[in-house]
């Protein structure tokens, strides 16, 4: 029986044993309700396990956010329709935080994957950029948040470091995106990593 505050999650992709393991893990954590992928209504978050030899993505139903569980990425940005890239190297509690973050409409990018994306981008373009001056225009608190964003921290970890609520951090992030002229967490994170 699903409680009203719980986030509905489905597991897909990968191998049957991975899916069973992930489903059991999420069912043991507070605040998640694991449902079948073809459930009506659809899940709020679909966790999709991928491997380097198979990057096939599922068709998403309206309202479902996609979190890719992966080892590496060959992309130079977060792929379209993907709301989060989660590295298999991260911890169980980080997976719970990532699912909550994308369920609220935010993006999630594991630090190692963000670094891989940034390296990919830098090899494509070496020209000077105006990021530094844009970051200088941020308030002290916003700069603190940008610095933690550049370390690849989730909103929860940023909030914990600054002793603020996750909602407050997300409010600051919305202002930061506006001031930096970026449209997503990935762009802001990559810009922040460049100016570090």
């Amino acid at each position, binding site marked *: 029986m699903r409680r009203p505050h719980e986030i509905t999650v489905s597991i897909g992709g990968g191998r049957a044993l991975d899916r069973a393991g992930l489903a059991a893990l999420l069912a043991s954590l*507070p*605040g998640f309700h694991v449902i079948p992928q073809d459930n009506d209504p659809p899940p709020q978050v679909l966790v999709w396990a991928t491997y380097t030899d198979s990057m096939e993505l599922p068709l998403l139903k309206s309202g479902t956010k996609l979190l890719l569980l992966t080892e590496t990425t060959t992309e130079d940005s977060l792929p379209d329709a993907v709301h989060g890239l989660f590295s298999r190297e991260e911890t169980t*509690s980080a997976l*719970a935080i990532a699912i909550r973050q994308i369920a609220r409409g935010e993006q999630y990018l594991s630090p190692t994957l963000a670094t891989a994306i940034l390296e990919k981008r830098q090899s494509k373009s070496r020209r000077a950029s105006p990021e530094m001056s844009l970051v200088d225009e941020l308030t002290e608190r916003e700069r603190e948040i940008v610095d933690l964003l550049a370390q690849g921290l989730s909103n929860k970890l940023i909030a914990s470091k600054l*002793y603020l*609520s996750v909602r*407050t951090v997300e409010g600051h992030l919305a202002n930061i995106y506006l001031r930096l002229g970026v449209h997503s967490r990935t762009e802001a994170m990559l810009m922040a990593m460049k100016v570090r």
Partner: protein
Amino acid sequence: MNNPKTRLALLGTMSDLHKQPICYDLACLQNIVAELAPDLLCAEVTREAWEQGDISQSSVEIRESLAPVIAVTDTVLIPVAPTPQQFSDFAPRDGWRYRLVKMFDRFFRWGQIQANNPEAVNGPWFGAFCHTVCMATELLWSAEQRAAWENQNKQLAENIVHTIQRDTGRRVLVAVQCQRLHHLIPLLRAHSDLFDIMGYQYL
């Protein structure tokens, strides 16, 4: 931006009473936090210990219940304890005062058997009982011990108020050992312009 007024709830926990022979299932505390999903959880751990990731000196409910649930939810733990000392650390170590405190401990144990769930621990009956036994116990402490306990509660209240001032308009749950409640409630009510205090069920 005008944030709504902060909502604050106090949740009394058994804390060092868990050292008594009767142990409660800490899962109920975990369920309360997971279901209330407060934005911030002020807990009795020092900032230094929390930042070092060393909660070994914290109470059993922080180690085994609150810290694990905080790790997998969006609630942020705010360490508000000025020192690691708890109620029982202020008790006299020997003499007739020590023996009398031990007798009051047996009262506590009896109360703990009666109030066997969070609703009861935070209800008016156990509240009045805990208040009376704690007041009587505190009278057996030395003047220095009483002053140190009062000062610790004042600093704890100030840390809670600073947390709210730093991040207004949020839902804040304060989980502290029940022996502190009769000190903390009046100290926090003095700041009712900053937040509304309510029962944890209504957060």
